[in-house]
């Protein structure tokens, strides 16, 4: 029985070596495939087929994927954060330009020019050309508010378009995840290897993480994916698509299965666009409206308390605001100069001679009065500059910090999951040798068997 069983053992060994070399080949081929975790073949000594059998062969127990799923989760979570912050910083970068101190025609610089023109008028209150200059400067302030508001609105609309795009990208990924999930479950139920499906799932989850944050739960029918507040995204083989619904402000909210999840998406570029659109820019937009409204109201109040070059009571310099409604909404985008002639500027106090400039002094004093929500006009603008600059700066440094963590984690992941060409080459040599050894045994057994058969030959001379 010895030689036959040796032959069997050798055949088993040949097969095991072939499988091991297959795994090595797969590893080498996929060394750059996203989501791929290196595999290794787990060999075990086979159970002897009968009692007293002295030689036992080798079995391929399993092909193991060296995947650290906890590490993968952590990488995806960080990836979401980085993507969020990078998106915020990119989406706002166009907006911050109009708040820069070097921006010509910014709200701050045009307000400075407006007050300068009033100062100039105070040196010669009856000068027609200086009065026209004031109106021009006021017009520039109004244009600065309008163009700044337009930049903010445009950035909001761009973010909104990106929300729709990201939603559809997320949906496509969710469907693929659900399909892969179903394949994994089927493979597991039929006892087949799900390694390649797992690799694909890992790659899909990583892609999804740059679009949005999510939570995962492993259950009997595979992976369950939900949003942060538990709205289902993928359950087993079924994907629940995200939908967009236009809200009262005209922007697209994100719904998961009928639930509004707009505010709960706080990662990935989708989260970044939502945060930019609904928080940073929305706040900025209403601050600009308040600013324009209160500035115009303050100037108008001084203007209507004085008397113009024709001896008439001053008319409002800016319109709107509609002081009766008292609402600031839309003020920044609609502010305009209401006066048509420089003579209508109320430089004089009511009842004073037309060459009087004491009401002009009141208007000049506005520059140092806290007329914008407890701030001077200049401070109000400089606060806006700080806020937008700080938001971007924080997002950028968070992205950098998360980037550093990601590098660490990715290195860690690589040290576990990454394919090393040197290692695979050395394995290849190893399995080649073991294949050669098995083949050698087979040829040895063959020779031995030939010898035995020769012993019983009738005509050894053949």
């Amino acid at each position, binding site marked *: 029985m010895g030689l036959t069983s040796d032959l069997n053992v050798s055949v088993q060994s040949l097969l095991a070596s072939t499988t091991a070399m297959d795994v090595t080949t797969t590893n080498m081929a996929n060394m750059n495939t996203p989501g791929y975790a290196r595999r290794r073949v787990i060999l075990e000594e086979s159970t002897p087929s009968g009692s007293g059998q002295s030689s036992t062969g080798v079995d391929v127990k399993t092909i193991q994927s060296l995947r650290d799923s906890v590490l993968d989760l952590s990488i995806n979570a960080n990836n979401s954060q980085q993507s969020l912050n990078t998106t915020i910083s990119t989406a706002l970068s166009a907006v911050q330009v109009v708040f820069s101190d*070097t921006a010509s025609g910014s709200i*701050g610089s045009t307000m400075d020019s407006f007050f*300068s023109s009033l100062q100039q008028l105070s040196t010669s209150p009856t000068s027609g050309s200086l009065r026209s200059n004031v109106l021009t400067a006021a017009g520039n302030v109004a244009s600065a508010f309008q163009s700044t508001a337009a930049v903010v609105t445009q950035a909001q609309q761009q973010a909104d378009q990106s929300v729709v795009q990201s939603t559809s990208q997320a949906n496509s990924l969710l469907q693929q995840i659900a399909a892969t999930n179903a394949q994994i479950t089927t493979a597991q139920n039929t006892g087949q290897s799900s390694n390649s499906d797992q690799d694909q799932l890992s790659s899909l989850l990583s892609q999804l993480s740059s679009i949005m944050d999510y939570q995962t739960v492993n259950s009997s029918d595979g992976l369950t994916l939900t949003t942060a507040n538990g709205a289902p995204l993928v359950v087993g083989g079924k994907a629940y698509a995200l939908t967009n619904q236009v809200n009262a402000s005209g922007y697209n909210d994100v719904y998961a299965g009928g639930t509004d999840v707009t505010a709960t998406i706080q990662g990935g570029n989708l989260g970044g666009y939502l945060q930019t659109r609904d928080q940073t820019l929305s706040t900025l937009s209403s601050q600009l409206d308040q600013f324009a409204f209160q500035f115009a109201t303050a100037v108008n109040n001084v203007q209507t308390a004085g008397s113009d070059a024709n001896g008439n009571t001053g008319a409002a310099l800016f319109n709107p605001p509609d002081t009766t409604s008292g609402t600031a909404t839309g003020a920044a985008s609609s502010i305009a100069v209401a006066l048509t002639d420089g003579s209508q500027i109320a430089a004089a106090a009511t009842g004073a*001679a*037309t060459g009087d400039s004491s009401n002009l002094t009141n208007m000049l004093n506005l520059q140092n009065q806290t007329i914008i929500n407890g701030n001077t006009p200049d401070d109000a603008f*400089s606060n806006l*500059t700080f806020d937008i600059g700080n938001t971007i700066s924080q997002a950028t440094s968070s992205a950098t910090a998360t*980037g550093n963590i990601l590098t660490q984690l990715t290195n860690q992941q690589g040290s576990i999951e990454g394919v090393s060409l040197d290692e695979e080459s050395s394995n290849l040599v190893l399995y080649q040798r073991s294949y050669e050894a098995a083949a050698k045994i087979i040829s040895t057994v063959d020779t031995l068997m030939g010898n035995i058969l020769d012993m019983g030959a009738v005509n050894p001379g053949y």
Partner: protein
Amino acid sequence: MRVNPNYSNDMVNLMDQAQQAEDNAAQQLSTGRRVNLPSDDPAAEAAMIGENSRSASVDQYTANSDSLKDVLNTANSTLNSVVTALQRAVSLGTEGANGTMNQTDLDSIAQEVSNIKSQMLSLANTSYAGQYLFGGTSNTGAPYVTDTADPTQVDYVGNSQQNKVQIGTGLSVASNLPGSSIFSQSGANVFDALQSLVSALQSGDSAAIGTAGTSVSNALSAVDTAQVFYGTTVNELTSNETYLSQEKVNIATYQNTLVSADTATAATQMTQAETALNATLAAAAKVSQVSLLDYLK
């Protein structure tokens, strides 16, 4: 411990960082500014907004001072002519009062004084850049007009108001002196005094000529006293301009510390970044040259 066999990620990261640092330094060197956008240094940018506004104010205060000085100097030189003319009237009065002249001579002196009075009217109605210098804040017409009922009388139709011009934060000066405080002060009215001298000279009454001469002299010293306002204000403006130019330098210096790039530091950073980038590139090129496969047959 197993190391990450895929170092390209690390390498790319390092190259990115070095390149970013190099870009950053290059931008600082080319723009001369460390802070180009609010996100570069939000606090410095916010402070810059305030400083820009302060700087604009200082510029405007300086411009205000300049144009005000022009106006005040014009008024001052007008008053110099007024004083010279009045001094002539005073000496004419003294001449007429000594009693040695005949009526013909007195009449011709009266004519000269009358001319001085006309000259005075024109001087008191001097305007600069469309504004009457001595009409208070009223600018509806010439401040001094001949009385329609009595052509020998000159009436003041301006007001006694002063305008203020800001020449610093919370600092302002009066930009005009109304005629009522110069030519037509109560008890020292230039036109009344000159008219009384004309009348006295025409009447030939030495005592009356003496009295009228004294009134002209009083009016002269009243104008003299009023003129001090212009000198004082111009002096104040000049010294304030010196302060403003110093302030401008201070603001510029502060702005520099806020946003300007330190060229030496930026240049050093640039060199460092470049060295780091070169080293990373060289390492990346070297490290991927060999693998075990090269040694296997």
